[in-house]
């Protein structure tokens, strides 16, 4: 939230962060003063299907990492055809079940820190987004599944929901629209896997948080086996501005296939780490300029474009446009635009080990590759960092990574091996340097022999 005063993004007027620097920005009064809850009134005047089309046409893509087109996700929710009434044969069909909106606020990936400040500084933008989205998908219940550790944000969100109820923005027959909506803020219990949408739903239902088998997808059988939209906080907080500003305005920002503004979370060795809202497609070079450059002028060594699950970039990638396509073309992913910046003082094998230890700790244990793979990968990395590694270990790391990537049940395993494979890809010599003067593996005791 240390947005520098000299920063004047062009052509962007801050959208998501425009209230963040106000004193007590989180209050309903400030939110309303700056046009808050106007989009909700506009939305109520529209047909739900038109809202879905509007968001579809705006090109908004999910901000949780995967970049799935938001409007398309909403359109997957089965709705009764005009005039269709349930019959004995169809009464259990998904279109006649209740619909649910679930907000994924379980922000827990190393480096990712955009939703928490958003909910701290401007919770009503999320709540207004929830109202509009729920109206669009005809849901009367919305759950915000928030990471249990961020107690301050949970409190602020609770307060904002109370304020919204008191102002009549939530509850029965909101502002005479005939639309009912209840929002429940549910705190998670500290598992990274619960950011995976189906594990989140299981956790929300009171079960063990482990990913579900798909299909069925949440759009047809999500929360309590009813059609459910699961969206990220930033995605939904973007929705009111689309309704208020229109799709053409929205598309003036960002790039053709990745339009709109985005909060980039800069952390690490930069002069002014923090949240920087910029159009999608902004490069690290531009972001570093906004953030005052590398800390103490020590040169950049490597960075992540979107959190620890996205493959590393190096100083070769300073001009990669950071949008969904740009990051992918350069061999990584946009992820959550959690830009972690590391200078030359940082050992890549050490950083990779720390990340892998995170995944070792957070793997839910459901599937073999992720559960066992991360456990043993972390062990190898710890040994290498202790100076006990061998060159064969590097091959073992890469081979085990290839047996985890694309083989695990959910995307956690895929993301977990990104730091290792990309770290070795760009900095193999650093790993080799750790293995100097180690005996060959044949002389060593292998697991299973003790």
């Amino acid at each position, binding site marked *: 939230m240390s947005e520098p005063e000299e920063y004047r993004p062009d052509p962007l007027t801050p959208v998501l962060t425009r209230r963040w620097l106000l004193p007590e920005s989180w209050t309903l009064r400030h939110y309303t003063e700056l046009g808050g809850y106007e989009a909700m009134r506009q939305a109520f005047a529209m047909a739900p299907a038109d809202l879905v089309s509007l968001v579809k046409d705006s090109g908004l893509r999910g901000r949780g990492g995967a970049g799935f087109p938001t409007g398309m996700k909403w359109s997957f929710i089965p709705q009764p055809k005009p005039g269709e009434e349930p019959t004995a044969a169809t009464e259990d069909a998904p279109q006649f079940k209740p619909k649910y909106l679930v907000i994924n606020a379980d922000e827990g990936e190393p480096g990712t820190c955009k939703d928490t400040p958003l909910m701290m500084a401007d919770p009503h933008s999320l709540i207004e987004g929830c109202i509009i989205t729920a109206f669009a998908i005809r849901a009367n219940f919305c759950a915000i599944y928030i990471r249990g550790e961020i107690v301050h944000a949970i409190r602020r969100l609770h307060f904002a929901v109370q304020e919204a109820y008191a102002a009549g923005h939530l509850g029965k027959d909101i502002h005479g629209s005939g639309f009912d909506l209840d929002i429940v803020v549910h705190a998670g219990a500290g598992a990274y896997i619960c950011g995976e949408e189906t594990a989140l739903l299981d956790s929300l239902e009171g079960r063990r948080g482990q990913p579900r088998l798909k299909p069925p997808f949440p759009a047809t059988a999500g929360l309590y086996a009813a059609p459910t939209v699961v969206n990220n906080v930033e995605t939904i907080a973007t929705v009111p501005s689309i309704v208020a500003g229109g799709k053409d305005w929205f598309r003036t920002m960002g790039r053709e296939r990745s339009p709109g503004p985005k909060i980039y979370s800069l952390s690490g060795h930069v002069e002014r780490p923090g949240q920087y809202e910029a159009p999608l497609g902004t490069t690290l070079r531009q972001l570093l300029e906004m953030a005052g450059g590398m800390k103490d002028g020590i040169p950049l060594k490597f960075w992540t474009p979107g959190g620890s699950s996205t493959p590393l970039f190096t100083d070769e990638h300073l001009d990669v446009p950071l949008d969904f396509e740009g990051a992918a073309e350069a061999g990584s992913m946009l992820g959550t635009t959690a830009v972690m910046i590391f200078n030359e003082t940082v050992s890549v094998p050490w950083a990779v080990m720390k990340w892998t230890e995170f995944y070792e700790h957070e793997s*839910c*244990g459901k*599937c073999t590759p992720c559960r*066992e793979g*991360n456990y043993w990968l972390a062990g190898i990395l710890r040994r290498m960092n202790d100076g006990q590694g061998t060159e064969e270990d590097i091959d073992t790391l890469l081979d*085990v990574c290839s*047996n985890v990537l694309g083989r695990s049940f959910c995307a956690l395993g895929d993301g977990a091996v990104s730091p290792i494979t990309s770290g070795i890809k760009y900095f193999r010599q650093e790993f080799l340097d750790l293995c100097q003067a180690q005996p060959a*593996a044949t002389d060593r005791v*292998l697991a299973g022999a003790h």
Partner: protein
Amino acid sequence: MTQAPEQEAPPVPEGHVRLTIDGRTVDAPKGEILIRTCERLGIVVPRFCDHPLLEPAGACRQCLVEVEMGGRPMPKPQASCTMTVADGMVVKTQVTSAVADKAQQGVMELLLINHPLDCPICDKGGECPLQNQAMSSGRAESRFHEHKRTFEKPLPISDEVLLDRERCVLCQRCTRFSDQIAGDPFIELLERGAHQQIGTEETAWGAGEEFQSYFSGNTIQICPVGALTSASYRFRSRPFDLVSTPGQCEHCASGCSTRRDWRRGGVTRVLAGEEPTVNEEWLCDKGRFAFRYPASPQRVLQPMVREDGVLTPVPWVDALERAATLLAGARDGRGEPRTGEDGEELAPKRGVGVLPGGRLTVEDAYAYAKFARLALHTNDVDQRARAHSDEELDFLAGHVAGVAPSHVSYAHLEAARTVLCVAFDPEEESPIVFLRLRKAARHGTRVVHVGSWTTPAVVKTGGHLLAAVPGEEPAALADLPDDLAAALAAPGAVVLVGERAAEVPGLLTAVSELGARTGARIAWVPRRAGERGGVDAGALPTLLPGARRVDDADAREAVAAVWGVPSLPAAPGRDLTAMLTAARDGELAGLVLGGVELADLPDPDLARAALAEADVVISLEQVLSEVTEHADVVLPVAPAVNRSGTYRNWEGRDRPFATTIDPGQGGSGRVGGTAAVTLPDCRVLDSLAVEMDVDLFTQTPQAAAAELAELGTVAVTPSTPATRPSSPDVSDGTRLTSDDSSGPPLTGRVRLATWRQLIDGGALLAEETDLPGTARPPRLRVAAGTAERLGLVAGEPARLGDTLDLVVELADLPADVVWAPSHVPVPGGVVTLAGLGLGHGDLVDVAAPVAAAVAPVVAHGEPQ
């Protein structure tokens, strides 16, 4: 299959899709899981979590294959255990795809890194999917240096099941079985990531609800590694040292296929056999673990006759001769003349009754039925060693005898929209019927239980209880809620009625009338394995073999013709209670008893008196018992494991089995360490009959079965019992009329509901020490309000009748009703409510125990 290239491919059958697997075209039913289609082609894709009877999980990732859809390869290998087939799909398994092969090798390596190399001492070694698949899909050498995870071992999940967590591959078959199949989800995944493990509340917290399930043994069998092991089998043998013989479970009327693994004359373990139409791949713990009774020190291995009041072993010839002489004398009334009370001379006692018991094979029951009619000239034969009535005889004749599985089968239960259970707690009384009802309930069948409280079986089959006051079930059936009556009138509806319906006058008639009124099909589910076969074999006083009625002259003639005798006794026989009464009163001279436990009988004291009074008691037994204490001759008979035969299950389905261990075969002729050749009941009876100059032609079960088949079954049309139950007997004050319930209840007197629990100290549990540990503890159940009125406190003992103390547990019973199990195991035996003179529907005194005038009987395992 080779096809000429110009030949057009046949059209895809309706409801099927066509796909290619490893270059071979195959049609698969829509919705089939890919791994099954591979199986049908003979392609074995390695797997751990996949199990055809469990919902797909996709957890182990061992079964990855490459899939191409619509010409586009999917970017990642897919788990073939979760993917359903689709038209045009192209699949490459490890056979043709290097990617799939590497993926499988990779997963296998990850599973093996942590797995201990203790195969040489592991129970699973030699029959272990992990071991086998490590050979097919694993790498021979490790490349990891770190230490394996270790856990304290073994962790007792229950008295029977032990868990070695370091062997576990976390496939979750056991937890999914517990949750989906048994519905006893006390075993769960704990922790996460590499620390994830299987456990129970108790293992997680050191305290909590115990793992209590009648089906826990199945988790041992479906565990694809040696993580879950059987306490009774652990470290006992190697699978390749055992002989595996298919068998049939002798414990109840469910009719499960089993596999008996044995060596050195003894069974070392019993596994569930695969029988999709009956038990699928499951077995209850009683069937799995209660197999040690043949090794009981009480086993009778030689014929014995009573000399000077002491049973003395004698050769078979002597024993048979003695028994035949005694029986012929008793039959013909050649005993001492009796003297009446006033000194007048009375006719000598005359006649012999036959009580075969309910645990027989069809062939044995047939032999008893024929023995009674030909050797003893009587219809006095009744296999029902339990509460019984004339009404029941009519019901059995009208609804059960001769009915084939096409009437009601397991498949019917699964397909039914509605099933009504009457006087039947399926989990306690026929566990595999319970599993099928639960499966049906999970797929939408409405299973309604007429009972007195929401038992675990009710909960796990959907929770529909139609509460009825004990004794008033007939009224409940006569006045069903409209929606239930309508549902029962819909096609496919089934009414399951248990054997204890005979305890409630009018109930079987009400069931019959309900069937007539709604068209719902009726099936009778007895507890014991032999009861259903005995009905068909004629081991009842009013029925001849093949559903023929004794009072039908044509039927008698038909049977007599096959048996080669001029005629059969025409007078319907006496039932068990009538026979015992006659024997006690000095009218009946002799009794022939099969496997009958006096404690099981409706009036054990009557039976004791009858045995004491009868001149001749011939016992065909496996073990020394209360009956043999009174017997003049004891003829040993073979346990199921040493013989062949056929059980007929509740469906009416024949469940034939061959001899597992033939004691006559050379060095293996030992049973529990004792050389012994025992014979089936039918063979013993045949020899006995020969001594009485009668030929039964039941030398072997095969011969008996052939003759029974020749007799055939007459067509049966279900009919309502002709015998109306006599009005409840109120003279002794034990039965209530419904009017009584309106008045204020007598202090301390409440109505008793009771039935038996699955594991309650029966004779076939002998020698099995672990099983009682997972038995449901005997409890007195009562509603909170009634408990308060009676001064009972949950968790504290209550006294039932004069002497029996049971711990109180609150449940949703009707007011002024208590429930207690019919049999309560106590140290050294069993206390039965029948033995205390108490039955279902009786009035009983219940109170918090005060200083005991009589030494109380404390239930086994209760806090003292």
